[in-house]
C-alpha cells in the first residue's frame, strides 16, 4: 500500500511538471500580455513610448518572446515555485499564494454548503427514484434534475435574483454583506448577514448540481438492484428495507465515494460564473479576471493549485475505493 502511494505520488509529480510546462507555454504564447493590456490606452495615445513599454516589460520579465526567452522564463518560474514562491501577481500586486489563500475560503464555504445540500437531497431522492422506477417520483425527479442540468448558471442566477431579490425582496441582490450597516462589535450579526447573502448563490449551485448526482445515484442503484446478490438476498426472505438499505445502498456507495473525492478541485477552485453574477469575491472571480488580464504568475499559480487538487483527488478516490470495497487491492 505504502509503495503504491509513493509510486502514485512520484507519477503525480511528473504529471504536474508536464502540466506546468504546457500551461506556461500556452500562456506565454497568447498574443497579448499583461503589460500590453494594462497600458494599451496610454500607448495608443502616445503617453507612454514604445521604449518605455519595453522597459516596463523587461521589469516584468516579459520582454523576450523567443522560444529561449520563454524557456528561460519557465525555469525562472519553476525555480521559484519549487522553493514555494509562486511569485507576485501582476494584477493583484501581492504574492500569488497569499491571494489564493485569502480568497479560496469564500468559494470553499459556498461550495461546501451547496455540496452538503446536494448530497443530502440527491442521494435519498436518487435511491428512492430507482426503487420506484417509472413511478411518479421517478418521473418527477428526472424532469427536475434534467432542468437543473440543462439550465445555464448565469440564466438560472438571473431568474432567481429577479424572483427572490428584485420582485419579492426577500434576499439581497448582490455581494456578501450589507454595506449600509456598520458591523463593528457584532460578529454574529455579520455572520448571519453573510449566510443571508449566500442563500441565493447556494440555492443556484445546489439546483445546478443536484440533477447530476441524482441521476448518477439512480443509475447505479438500478444496476445494483439487478445484481445477483440482491436476488439472493430477496430469495433468502430478507425484508425489502434491509435489502435496499444494507445490501444495495452499500454497493451504490462505491461509485459515489469515487465521485466525492474528485469533487476536491471544485470545492476549492471556485464557481467562476456564479461568483461573477452575485459579485462574490471568491477565487473563481479572481481567476477569471487574472486570465483576461494575462497575469502569468496568478494563472500559473491558480492552475497548478487546481492541478494539484485534481491529482490528489484522484489518488484519494483510488484509496477510498479500497476502504469501501474490500474486493479491490492496490498493488
Amino acid at each position: 500500500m505504502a509503495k503504491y502511494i509513493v509510486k502514485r505520488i512520484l507519477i503525480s509529480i511528473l504529471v504536474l511538471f508536464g502540466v506546468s510546462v504546457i500551461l506556461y507555454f500556452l500562456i506565454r504564447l497568447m498574443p497579448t500580455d499583461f503589460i500590453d493590456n494594462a497600458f494599451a490606452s496610454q500607448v495608443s495615445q502616445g503617453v507612454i513610448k514604445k521604449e518605455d513599454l519595453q522597459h516596463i516589460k523587461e521589469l516584468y520579465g516579459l520582454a523576450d518572446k523567443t522560444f529561449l526567452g520563454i524557456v528561460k522564463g519557465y525555469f525562472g518560474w519553476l525555480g521559484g515555485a519549487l522553493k514555494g514562491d509562486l511569485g507576485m501577481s501582476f494584477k493583484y500586486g501581492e504574492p500569488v499564494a497569499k491571494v489564493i489563500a485569502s480568497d479560496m475560503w469564500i468559494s470553499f464555504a459556498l461550495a461546501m454548503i451547496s455540496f452538503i445540500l446536494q448530497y443530502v437531497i440527491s442521494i435519498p431522492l436518487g435511491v428512492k427514484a430507482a426503487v420506484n422506477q417509472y413511478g411518479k417520483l421517478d418521473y418527477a425527479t428526472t424532469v427536475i434534475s434534467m432542468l437543473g442540468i440543462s439550465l445555464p448558471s448565469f440564466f438560472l442566477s438571473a431568474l432567481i435574483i429577479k424572483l427572490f431579490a428584485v420582485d419579492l425582496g426577500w434576499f439581497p441582490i448582490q455581494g456578501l454583506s450589507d454595506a449600509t450597516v456598520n458591523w463593528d462589535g457584532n460578529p454574529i450579526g455579520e455572520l448571519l448577514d453573510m449566510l443571508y447573502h449566500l442563500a441565493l448563490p447556494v440555492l443556484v449551485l445546489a439546483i445546478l448540481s443536484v440533477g447530476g448526482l441524482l441521476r448518477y445515484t439512480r443509475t447505479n442503484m438500478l444496476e445494483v438492484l439487478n445484481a445477483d446478490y440482491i436476488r439472493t438476498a430477496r430469495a433468502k426472505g430478507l425484508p425489502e428495507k434491509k435489502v435496499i438499505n444494507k445490501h444495495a445502498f452499500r454497493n451504490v456507495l462505491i461509485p459515489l465515494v469515487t465521485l466525492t473525492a474528485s469533487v476536491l478541485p471544485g470545492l476549492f477552485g471556485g464557481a467562476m460564473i456564479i461568483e461573477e453574477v452575485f459579485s462574490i469575491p471568491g477565487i473563481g472571480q479572481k481567476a477569471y479576471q487574472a486570465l483576461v488580464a494575462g497575469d502569468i504568475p496568478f494563472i500559473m499559480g491558480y492552475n497548478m493549485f487546481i492541478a494539484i487538487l485534481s491529482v490528489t483527488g484522484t489518488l484519494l478516490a483510488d484509496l477510498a475505493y479500497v476502504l469501501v470495497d474490500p474486493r479491490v487491492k492496490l498493488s
Partner: protein
Amino acid sequence: MLKNVSKKVLSLVIAVLLVCATPMFLAACGNKKVDAFVIASDVMDGLFNPFFATNANDSTMVGMTQLSMLTSDKNGEVAYGDDLPVVVKDMNQCPIDNRTDAQKAQAARPGFEPTAEYYENYYTTYEFVLKNGVQFSDGHPLTMEDVLFNMYVLLDPAYSGSNTMYSTDIRGMKAYRSQNADWAEQNAFDSYFNNQVNGLISQITNFCDNYKDLSADEDKYKDYIKTTRTLFKEEVQADWNAAAGMKNDYPNYPELKEQWQIFLVLYGQITLEEKKVSGKDTEYNIIWHGWDNPAANNLGSTAEADLIKYAYENKVGEDKKFYAGECSQGEYERYYKAIGEILRYWATAQSARDAFLVDIKSAYYDDIREENGGLLIPNISGITWEKDKTNYTFAHKEGDTPKTFSNSEKHQILKIVINGADPKAIWNFGFSVTPKHIYSKEDFDYDKNKFGVVAGSRDFMNKLKEVTVPVGAGAYKAKGATTDKGVFYNNNQVYFERNDKFIMGVPKIEYITYKVVDADRKLEVVDKGEVHYADPTSKPSVTNQINGMSHIKRYDIANLGYGYIGVNASKIRDINIRRAIMTSMNTSLVTSNYYADTAEIIYYPVSKVSWAYPNIKDADKGIYTSVSGGNSTIYDSGNHKYRYGSKDAAVSEITRLVEDEAGYKKDKDGNYYKNVNGTNQYLKYEFTVPGATKDHPAMDIFTNAQDLLNGMGFQITVNTRADALSKLTTGELAVWAAAWGSTIDPDMYQVYHKDSQATSVNSWGYSYLTSDDASTEERNLLNQLSDHIEKARTFLEPDQRKPYYKLALERVLDLAIELPLYQRNNLIIVNKKIIDENTLTPQNECTPYQDPLSKIWLVDFK
C-alpha cells in the same frame, strides 16, 4: 429507515433555510439604521497602492485617501489654492524661449536632436508653494520630504507603475534615470575623467622614462604596468594577424612574401632600405639581420607563437622574469622605457587609456556610492527645493512684471525645470502626495541627496508594494486605520472612515463603503437601498426605468471622449473605397437603436466637451476664417461629410465613388473587382466590433452597412473580437468601431501627426500613408494635417488654436480614416431617500472633470 433518513434530510434543509431566513425577516421588519454611505463600484483588482494601482476602480479607492498637488476645475483647467483640497497653495509656470532664429530653424528640420545647449535658452519653470499645516490621516505632517519622495519614486528607473511623470522631460531626469550622464552632464563628466586619465598616463610614462631614479614608486604603478603589458601582448597578436593582409603592401620588395616576414618588418627585426641611386632610380634593399635564414638564427623558427613571443619579449621582457624581479637593472630600464613608448605611441596607448578610464570611473563612483548611498548621479538637477520663503518672486520673462508670493509664515517651494515647453506637463505634476514615513524606511536628507528611495532597486519597489492599504491626507482613511488589507477590502467591499485631520474640515458622513456590484444590477441595488450611489450604463432601458422612480436622482454628465469608426488606410488603400465605406455607415442608428437621448451624433472626430469641437458660435465670431484656408462651414446633421441620407442616396454615392472614382467593375457574380498589377482585387473586408458580445453601439451600423454593401458587390463580414483593441495597436484591423478617451488638452499630435510614435497611427495605417505607395492626394492631406497640428501647438490661447484644429479635423475626415460617431453621457444615480441631494455638487456644475461627489466631505445623509 429510509423514511427516517428523509425526515432527517427534511429537517436539515429546513434548519438551513431558517438560518438564512432569520436575518431576512429581521431586515424586512422595522426600519433599518443606515450607518454607511454605500457607493457602487465595478470589480477591483485589490491593488490599492498609490504608486502601482492600474485598475481605475482601485485608483478611485486610493484616491479617497489621497491629497493631490493640484486638481482641475469644472472646465478642466488647473486649480489650486486654499479653497481646494490640494497641497499647492500657489503656483506659477513660466516658459522661456530665447532660442536664436538659427536654433529654431534647426529644430524644424527632420531628425533634429536637441542638445543641452539648445535647451539652455528654451525651458519652462514650474514653481509650487506648498501649504503649511497639512496632515496625513495619522497626524504626521505633510512636508516637502513627502513631495520629493513621491517624485523620486515616480521617476525611478525601476518604477513600473502607470504614472507617466517620466514622460515629461524634466531637466537632469534622463541622466538620473540612466545613471549615465548625457548631454551637458556627460560632457562635464567626460572632461573630468579625461583630465584624470591624462594625468595618470603622464605619471606612468614619466615613471617609465625615469625608472632608474623612480624605481621606488614601482608598487604604485604595478597594476597599470601589468594592464599595459597584457594589452600590448594583445596588440602584438593583432599585428601578427594584420600582417597576413599586408602581403601586397610592399611591391618594391618582392622578397617579402610571408606573413612572418612582414610581421618582423613591423617589429623592426627586418629593416627596409630605400636609397636613391641616381637622379631617377631608387634602390630597394632588405636588410635581413639574419632572418634570411631563420633556422640559422637563435630563434630557429618562424612559427606564429614563437615569433609573437619573441617580438613581445624582445620589447618588454619575459613576463615571468619581469614580474619576479629577475631582470637586471639595465634590462628593467630598457623594458620600462619601451612601456613608456608603448603608452605614448603604440595602439596599446588607446586601449590602455580606456582601461584606466574604467578604473578611475569605478573608483570615483565607489566613492560617490559610499558618500551618497549608491548613486552616480545623485539627483535630478531640474527638481529643487526653495526652503523657508516668506517672500518669493516667481520665475518670469525678462521685462515682465513678476508674480510674487508673500506670507507671514515660512513656506516651502518646489521648483521644477523642464526642457522646452510642454503644455500638458503640468498635469504630470498633479500627483497625489503619499506619506514617506509609511511607504519607505529609507532616509531623507535633501542636502545629502537622500530622497527616501533606493534608486534603481527592484527590491525597494517590492517593499513599496508591501503597503497594501493606502494612507494619505485625503478626506477619508481606511476604516479603523487598519493596515491589514483583509480588513480594508473584505467581501468585495472597501471600508472607509472619515479623516478628522482633513484640511477642508471633518467630513460629514462617518463611514463610506464601496461595494462591488455587477454592472447590470446597479439600478436595482440603488432602488432597493442596498447601495446609495451608482453609475449604471447610460442606456434607454435604464433611463426609462429611472424616470419612473421618484426616489432616485439622476445626473447626466458628458463623457470625456467620443465613439468613432476607424478605417485602416494600409488595409484599404484606395481613398475612394474608404470614402465609400464611410458613406455606407448610417450613423443615426447609434441614437435611434442604442443610446436614444443619452448620446448625440457628432460630426468631427473630437469630444464635443472639448473647446476644439468646431461650432456655430465660434464660426459667427469669425474665428475659423482668421487663418489661411480657414472656412466657416460647420458640419452638422444637414451637412455631414459622409452623409448616408437614405439608402438610395447612399447607394448612388457609393456607386459613383467605387465605379467612377476608384475604377472598379463587376465580375459575372456581381462582385466588384479591379485589376491591379495583374491580380484581381476584390472589396473583401472585415468590420470588427470589439468585445465578446454584439451589444455595441456600432453593431447596427455595421450590419446595416454590410447588407447595403454586399448587395452592391462588396464582400463584407461583421465580427466581434475580444482582442480587437490589442489588434488595433498593431494595425491589424481594416474597419472597426471603438471609442477614444480624451485628455484635457485637445493636442492631436500623438494621434494624427505623421511623425507620431503612438500606436494609434498603426491603426490608421500611417505606414502606408507615409510611404511612396500612397497617392499624391493622400500624402498632401497628411502633410496638411501634420502642419495644422504643428501650427496649433505654437499657440497657448484656445481661440488661436481653434481654427487650426478645425482644419486638422477636416483633413482627418478627408483622409477617410476616422468617422466620428457619437458623444455620450455618463449616468449617475443617487438614492435621495438616504442621501441629501442638496449636499451633492449640482447637475449644472457636473462636467467630465467633476462629479456629484467632487466635494465628498460636504455630502450628508438626509
